[in-house]
């Protein structure tokens, strides 16, 4: 692993320009944020080495880099979460020292974190104003005022939930929108969006972009981190590229193309992005009939065969995760007929039984559902396949290391060693660890819930390649995704969900963006 990192570094000598180019679209704009020579080290990891960043008012600056390149760390420095080891930050030309999140907020910086950070037991309105609760004349918190004002921000992002609802009852996508509404409510000068669309689908992304463009027009500076190239080209004025904690370059978006960006980011060309060889599917692996997750939902039917990829597309909250988690037995209250390789599984399924039958589900929320953040890579990647190396009071350490090392190698996980704590990895690398854990179990039916959430382009191609080879080996794959391109390119067939129901199951030759969106939106 370590050697590999060194190798990557040698491939291309990064083009280092000391002076980042200024956005050509905003000649009159002023510099709001200037970060220079930022250095940040964690025990054993140099996360940032002399990184610069310049942001103008009215600019949308894309921040691009592989998983673990240091994007979030740089933003955490700007957001007052981490203190840099050295380097300077200027806001509106004035040098600042942040001693915490509040300092940064008070300088007009709003931050939507990569990992959701909402209060589960507070209402939507309370979450929007957390830390800055509105007061009434007596000095007490004014619930009414907060509800009224938050409504305004929810409308802005186009989210239809009641401000009085508890956040723990919302889906991930909805929560992400709330984070954005919360950032908007700060009325900041700068807004940092760290992978805000990782669990949003097209419609919400559009809503978000509308908002971002409006803010930009108002002269706000926006830093936008994403691994989705289409978004970068859609939205940003300039793109700054980072690799291995160093600053590589800043380019004008309209003057570059995807290949160039990828090359700067990864240090090599990435070919065959969606590599999928379609074979004739085999026997039916999983068949679901008359299934309801909740008594108030209409029943759904679908099946997936060996060697095919069944895509699940839908808007956020359309119930994709809910359906498949319920079938796997992770949620109570589901009922209906489930057949695995023709054999009926009793109505009330339980996850251990399903795993035994060769099913595996890579969950959507890596932090809470996927990872043991305080344990190391070795532990995390082997926990689902213990029977392979522990039996009768004997632990085959060699085999265990092999499993972990295989995950690291095959998914190109960037880690100092197998003993690194998973909680310290970058978001994308964490996602790979979760994937590795399930691949190690050699499942016959693999359910992937947003498998490329937060994964960089290079690794995405890697994951697509793995999906393809699994399918070729006769594994039945179900892939839930909010990225239309991904589902369209990777699936044999696609189930579109809307309001908890499957509104259509489309064959590959029927794939058509408008048609799919029509079924998704209703």
């Amino acid at each position, binding site marked *: 692993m370590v050697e590999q990192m060194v190798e990557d570094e040698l491939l291309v000598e990064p083009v280092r320009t000391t002076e980042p180019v200024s956005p050509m679209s905003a000649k009159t704009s002023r510099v709001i944020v200037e970060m220079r020579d930022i250095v940040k080290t964690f025990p054993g990891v140099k996360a940032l080495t002399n990184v610069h960043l310049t942001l103008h008012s009215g600019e949308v600056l894309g921040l691009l880099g592989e998983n673990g390149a240091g994007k979030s760390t740089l933003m955490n420095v700007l957001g007052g*979460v981490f203190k840099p080891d050295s380097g300077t930050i200027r806001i509106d030309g004035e040098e600042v020292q942040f001693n*915490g*999140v*509040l300092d940064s*907020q008070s300088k007009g910086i709003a*931050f939507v*974190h990569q*990992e959701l*950070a*909402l*209060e*589960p*037991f*507070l209402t939507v309105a*309370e979450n929007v104003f*957390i*830390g*800055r*609760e509105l*007061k009434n004349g007596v*000095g*007490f*918190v004014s619930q009414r005022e907060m509800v009224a004002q938050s409504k305004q921000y929810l409308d802005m992002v186009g989210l239809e939930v009641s401000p009085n609802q*508890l956040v*723990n*009852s919302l889906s991930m996508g909805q929560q992400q929108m709330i984070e954005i509404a919360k950032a908007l409510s700060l009325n900041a000068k700068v807004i940092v969006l760290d992978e805000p669309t990782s669990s949003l689908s097209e419609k919400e992304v559009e809503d978000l972009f509308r908002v971002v463009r409006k803010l930009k027009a108002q002269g706000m500076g926006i830093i936008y981190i994403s691994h989705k190239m289409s978004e970068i080209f859609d939205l940003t004025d300039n793109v700054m590229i980072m690799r291995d904690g160093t600053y590589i370059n800043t380019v004008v978006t309209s003057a570059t193309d995807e290949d160039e960006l990828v090359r700067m980011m990864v240090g090599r060309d990435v070919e065959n992005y969606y590599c999928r060889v379609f074979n004739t599917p085999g026997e039916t692996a999983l068949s679901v009939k008359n299934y309801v997750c909740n008594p108030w939902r209409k029943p759904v039917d679908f099946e997936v065969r060996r060697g095919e990829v069944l895509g699940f597309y839908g808007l956020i909250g359309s119930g994709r995760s809910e359906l498949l988690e319920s079938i796997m037995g992770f949620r109570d209250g589901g009922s209906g007929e489930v057949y695995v390789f023709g054999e009926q599984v009793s109505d009330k399924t339980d996850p251990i039984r399903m795993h035994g039958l060769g099913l595996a589900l890579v969950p959507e929320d890596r932090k809470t559902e996927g990872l043991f953040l305080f344990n190391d890579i070795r532990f995390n990647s082997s926990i689902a396949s213990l029977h392979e190396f522990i039996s009768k009071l004997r632990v085959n350490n060699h085999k265990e290391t092999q499993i972990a090392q295989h995950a690291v190698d095959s998914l190109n996980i960037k880690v100092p060693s197998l003993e690194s704590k998973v909680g310290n990895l970058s978001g994308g690398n964490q996602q790979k660890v979760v994937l590795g854990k399930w691949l190690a179990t050699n499942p016959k039916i693999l359910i992937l819930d947003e498998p490329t959430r937060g994964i960089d382009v290079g690794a995405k191609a890697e994951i697509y390649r793995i999906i393809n080879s699994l399918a070729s080996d006769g594994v039945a794959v179900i892939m839930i995704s909010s990225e239309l391109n991904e589902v369209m390119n990777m699936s044999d067939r696609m189930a579109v969900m809307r309001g908890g129901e499957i509104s259509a199951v489309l064959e590959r030759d029927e794939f058509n963006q408008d048609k799919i969106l029509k079924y998704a939106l209703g």
Partner: protein
Amino acid sequence: MKIQTKVLDRLEDIPVVGSVAKVVKANMGILIGFLVLLVFLSIFAENFLSWANIVNLMRSVSTNAILAIGVMLSIMLAGIDLTCGALVALSGVVAVLSMSQFGMPLPVALLFGIAIGLVVGLLNGVIIAYTGIHPFVVTLAMQSICRGAAYLAAGGKPVTVRNEAFTALGNGYLGPIPLPVIYMLVLFFLLYLLLNKTRLGRHIYALGGNPTAAKYSGINVTRVKVFVWAVSGLLAAFAGVVLASRMSSGQPTSGVGYETDAIAAAVIGGTSMYGGVGRTSGVFIGVLIIGMISNGLNLLHVNSFWQYVIKGIIIIVAVYFDMRKNKGNVRTGF
């Protein structure tokens, strides 16, 4: 249960009825348990509903109530406060000694007794906030320290003082209502204001619900923690002083295991040990239930050994019902 809840939803829009309806809805599970217990005892325990017994019951729950307020706050942060029982003893001893040994005037002595609680509470809070040691461990160790200090200060035996005004503090009445009951009600009202009307209250919910999010939201996490344990210490000391007044003496042995009843009351009242969830009204009902178990079983002539068994069973059943009712709203991370 569906239907009742819906009716309550409608009622919420009517002004005064509304807030009552809200309280009832939030406490549905535990209220049913409370009512069952109430009706049962009213029928089977002679004199249970007599004014004399009600006064007696309310006075006897007041100590636990005051402790439960502090303990509840600590539990809302997914922590705990095990020091409070020992602090009851220490503060009582200190207050009494201040008068009997050092001849301080009553107000100064009271201040002293209460101040010791504040100091211990602050110490708890600071250690918890700055070292990251789990509150269970910190407050457990502090319990041992406070108990030892109480014994040392008192020389191992109860210390007494004769002071009318001091005695009145715990034994007096305001009209027909014992003073400790008044204290309890006032403190519950303050708790209500804190949790529902202040920023700090929101921050307590936030910190308990998701510490990372709280940090990212710019909440001063350290201050909230220190505040909570300091208040809990302060309240325990206040309860201790009142208790000492009721007995005209400071007993180094008093308060043993009081934290247990306070925790039980908080948890029965819907405070979640996973943090982030708690209601003032719930804790009040929890305190009443714990008090009624002991009072009621005594009135029913139940053997004290059986009381242990019955109390254990009631706690589990009560918490279970509260959780069932609030399913989905309460974390069952466990």
